[in-house]
């Protein structure tokens, strides 16, 4: 196992932001940490990069227990490198930024030049070697940051939202680089993303996080709602846009609910069934054996439909549709 964790918790100002009972991540793979904002992804990456220590709990890296209080972290950081979300480069040229880890490791000058050239080639930034790093676009900065991280010759590379706020061209280049470094250099890659399609495209394994905890799957369609009384045990969950969903729950007042996209039914015609709403199909995406449909019902709802079922519906973007959210598709998160 590359990483193993037991009862790892991280608290900030009395608030628990990470609470993992057990987590194991394999070696040599491309792994994805998925979850909404505030799920604890960045906190977990920083702990895995040995930049932050857990408040409690134990962690093993490559079979060895990590001592967060000792001086061993410096040695461990030589094996793991983190590319932060919105990576920041030092105020110098692109080449010198990539060269920095080599200078830290006292690599001879002649070898440094060649390595920097190779790495800039790998991320497709060879033409901008002499450019000032702070003049690069977000996507270019991210690519240089990846090259800089690779100059550390790491065993593991951690990437925090590597394609957030990046245009499609840079996104493709980053994804290609992630695959390349994993396949050709055997580097384990762990990255976080909101993009489920990207996760399914690249990752061999996905870990879902929600509110600091490991979740059974990714929580999608998360909305703030207000629970109101109906005939016991039923309650109405009123969403911010006024949509009323009938759910079974003990809770009252302000809550967060999530609607499982796989359990939502999509159809061409309506029914009198509870939680059925009319909307418009606004986006379609191919996702392995399923189709992801985004339906506007006053808010955007993501729905996953098996491909064979979807093809029989003869639907296109812009068509009016009906969705039904069965009670079992709605989870009240508290």
């Amino acid at each position: 196992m590359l990483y193993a964790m037991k009862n790892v918790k991280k608290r900030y100002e009395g608030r628990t932001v990470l609470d993992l009972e057990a987590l194991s991540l394999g070696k040599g793979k491309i792994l994805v940490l998925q979850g909404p904002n505030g799920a604890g992804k960045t906190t977990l990456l920083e702990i895995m990069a040995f930049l932050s220590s857990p408040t409690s709990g134990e962690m093993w890296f490559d079979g060895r227990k990590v001592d967060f209080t000792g001086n061993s972290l410096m040695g461990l950081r030589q094996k793991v490198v983190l590319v932060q979300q919105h990576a920041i480069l030092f105020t110098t040229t692109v080449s010198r930024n990539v060269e920095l880890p080599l200078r830290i490791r006292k690599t001879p000058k002649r070898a440094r030049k060649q390595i920097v050239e190779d790495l800039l080639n790998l991320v497709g930034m060879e033409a901008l070697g002499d450019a000032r790093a702070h003049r690069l676009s977000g996507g270019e900065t991210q690519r240089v940051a990846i090259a800089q991280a690779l100059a550390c010759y790491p065993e593991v590379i951690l990437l925090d939202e590597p394609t957030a706020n990046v245009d499609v061209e840079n996104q493709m280049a980053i994804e290609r680089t992630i695959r390349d470094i994993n396949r050709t250099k055997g580097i384990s890659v762990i990255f976080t993303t909101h993009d489920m399609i990207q996760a399914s495209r690249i990752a061999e394994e996905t870990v879902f996080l929600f509110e600091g905890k490991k979740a059974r799957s990714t929580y999608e369609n998360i909305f703030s709602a207000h629970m109101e009384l109906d005939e016991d045990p039923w309650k109405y969950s009123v969403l911010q846009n006024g949509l009323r969903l009938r759910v079974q729950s003990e809770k009252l007042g302000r809550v967060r609910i999530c609607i499982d996209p796989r359990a939502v039914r999509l159809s061409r015609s309506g029914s009198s069934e509870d939680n059925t709403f009319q909307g418009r199909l606004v986006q379609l995406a191919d996702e392995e054996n399923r189709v992801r449909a985004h339906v506007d019902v006053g808010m955007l709802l993501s729905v996953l439909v098996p491909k064979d079922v979807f093809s029989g519906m003869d639907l296109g973007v812009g068509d009016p549709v009906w969705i039904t959210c069965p009670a079992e598709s709605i989870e009240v998160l508290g």
Partner: protein
Amino acid sequence: MDFFIDSFLSAASLIWSMDPEFLVVVYVSLKVSSTSTLIASIVGVPTGFLIAFTEFRGRRLLITILNTLLSLPTVVVGLFVYAFISRRGVFGVYDLLYTQKAMVIGQVILIVPIVTTFTIAAISRIDERYRKTALTLGANLLQTAWLILREARFGIAAAIIAAFGRVIAEVGISMMLGGNAKGFTRTMTTAMALEYDKGLFVLSVALGIVLLTVSFAVNLFFNYFQGKARV
């Protein structure tokens, strides 16, 4: 109006004539001010860095005290140092009073708070991601500190320039601890005060103009290198 024209003409004449006595005054001013700025930077920059980068009890109080010391009057520093280095003072045996060393001691006390507080401000503005990037790239604590200082270099340079500006323009410490001895401890500011006392206002203002010109030249020099480094 004639007064200012005469002053400008006298200033131009002073520079043009390269009068040895005048050159010594400028030399002493630059030497003492540069030495005290250098020493204050060696003390103030690492101190500012440590205060900005570490959490400890009383940190906020220390910053408040340092901020208060920014308005330290030169006469108070002069009196304070005088008490220590005068014949009857604790360090009286070293015979420091009315020497350039005494002036440097006083000036260092005056500007260490400037360098320190400005360094704290410069380091505090540096994005936290730089520290994390340096550490994750394998840098040790010293290398990380160096990389952060490098990012804050323009702010730190501003701190040093401000400190230099403060000491080259001060008169209280130079007068009280230097004694305005001709050829030894006479600086541009003490010379100006002397000329004023003698009623030679034109020469006094002319020296002021020279002081500003020298100050401007030093700032141009710093700005040139800042500009080259920034690109």
